[in-house]
């Protein structure tokens, strides 16, 4: 009951922090898409390069998130820029990897048939590879988004705001309502984002393609 009262009383603050949270995670993931999807495409035809890139992205993924935020500070100062940078780096791996896997898994026979019919490279990319890989690529974006929304809570520690702020302030004030509000909102946000992206994925994926589960 206290929780409900807390939410009622701090409605504006929660909304503002949620907005910050969404824009931090959103910008991070969008940037990661803008960079990661083209990289995923580029490395498909380069076996060695693809290994290097995926390894680098793997290594980034293993850096504890708190440490990554801290490392970003000397480069970008405090506030949202280092937070967005760290979120961007985190989102990169699932997006590159899934794009790579999605495109790489397109049956070579189909590419061959497409070439044989006289499709240009660009036509093959947009008419064959992307539509066939879209659900796997979207899968990567979903993972990046859900983890990104979770990790964004840490951004508050370097002064970027977001729902994490409620958690840290709550912790220092021993205000459980505050902590729960921050944690629950962030979790709900992740679920909602996943749901919306899931709908989008369904819309983008042709009915002719049976979705394969990927990690």
């Amino acid at each position, binding site marked *: 009951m206290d929780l409900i009262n807390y939410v009622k009383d701090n409605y504006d603050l929660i909304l503002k922090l949620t907005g910050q949270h969404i824009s931090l995670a959103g910008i991070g993931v969008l940037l990661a898409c803008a960079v990661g999807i083209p990289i995923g495409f580029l490395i498909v035809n380069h076996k060695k390069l693809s290994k290097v890139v995926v390894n680098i992205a793997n290594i980034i993924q293993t850096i504890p998130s708190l440490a990554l935020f801290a490392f970003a500070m000397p480069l970008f100062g405090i506030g949202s820029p280092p937070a967005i940078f760290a979120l961007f780096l985190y989102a990169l791996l699932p997006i590159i990897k899934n794009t790579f896997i999605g495109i790489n898994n397109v*049956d070579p*026979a*189909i590419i*061959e*048939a*497409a*070439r*044989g*019919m*006289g*499709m*240009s490279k660009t*036509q093959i990319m947009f*008419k*064959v590879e992307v*539509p*066939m890989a879209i659900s796997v690529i979207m899968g990567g974006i979903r993972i990046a988004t859900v983890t990104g929304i979770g990790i964004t809570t840490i951004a508050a520690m370097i002064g970027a705001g977001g729902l994490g702020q409620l958690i840290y302030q709550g912790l220092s004030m021993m205000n459980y309502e505050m902590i729960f509000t921050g944690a629950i909102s962030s979790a709900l946000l992740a679920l909602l984002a996943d749901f919306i992206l899931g709908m989008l994925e369904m819309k983008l*994926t*042709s*009915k*002719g*393609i*049976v979705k394969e589960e990927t990690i």
Partner: protein
Amino acid sequence: MISLKGVSKSYNQQTKVVDDLNLEINDGELVVLVGESGCGKTTTMKMINRLIEPTSGDIFIDGKNIKSLNKNELRRNIGYVIQNIGLLPHQTIEKNIATVPLLCKKDKGEVKARVHELLDLIELPYDIYASRYPRELSGGQQQRIGVARALANNPDIILMDEPFSALDPITREQLQNELLKLQVELHKTIVFVTHDIDEALKLGDRIAVMADGNILQYDTPENILKHPVNDYVEAFVGTDRLWKTPDMLKAKEVMNKKIIKIGADRPILHAIELMKEHDTNILIVVENASSKSSKMLGILGINRLKGVSNPATKVRDIMKVDVIKIPQDMSLVEVLNIRKENGIQYSPVMDVAGNIIGIITNTSIINVLTDIVPDKEEY
């Protein structure tokens, strides 16, 4: 006309995958490239639509060197069918068939009409199949769509790389027959790759037997069978393959199609006349000889007539009734076994509906076998 002049392909300096190949394919001709795995069939074919570029030599289509043509334009004017079918899984059948015409920016209405026409041609009704996705079709249907797609832009030339080899034998045979039927109507110039000599013999107007990147013999199926140029070709086409695998010979292939029917109530005098007239020892006895669908009641061999003194005796009274009928697709081996076990001389062959369509006799078997095995020795 397609001509390959001195075409070679090598991936490294040492081995030539295709070695100084010359090949002329006339308009409207179905040419089969056949040979063992790795002999360079696919490579040869793909050089025609420039999926592979030759290391040396030139290829001309209607006198034009294809090097001088735009690759994608060239490919849009050559139908291409591959073993793995390669339909675009995310597109409907309609869109799949329409791929090339749409790439060529043809009028949408015309393209739709064309898809309709092609689906009719391959006997998959538009209303049922056009909006389906490839995975909602059987393998055989998918490959039919593959063929329709290759025809969509109405190319003069079609390349087919083992298009039917992933299908089960029955479907494969169906599609082979359909291809032959289509070819009668459409007269395309078709280059067909297979490693299956039976398929080659069945489909090809001419067959190019390949080995190690060379064409050993380029000739009609009949000449390839009867006059193989060397031991390799002979072994490959296996003129004696029917001896080695008599399983491949079916009852309907060794039967004598000439069957003489006689009504059961006719006198044996008439039977003797019929045998003389048609130079045969055996008659099929039916209720009514003038009716096409009359059921077989028995058979009458010439030996049954011996010792019958009354020429007015009815055929019905002396015919053999417990006759073993042979299904048309039974293999020669089984037929021979049955004949041996039961000591039979005459074996009527029936089609699936049970109608008698021929008769196997010792003579018919020997005739067929001597036809198949060409004379090699001089006597």
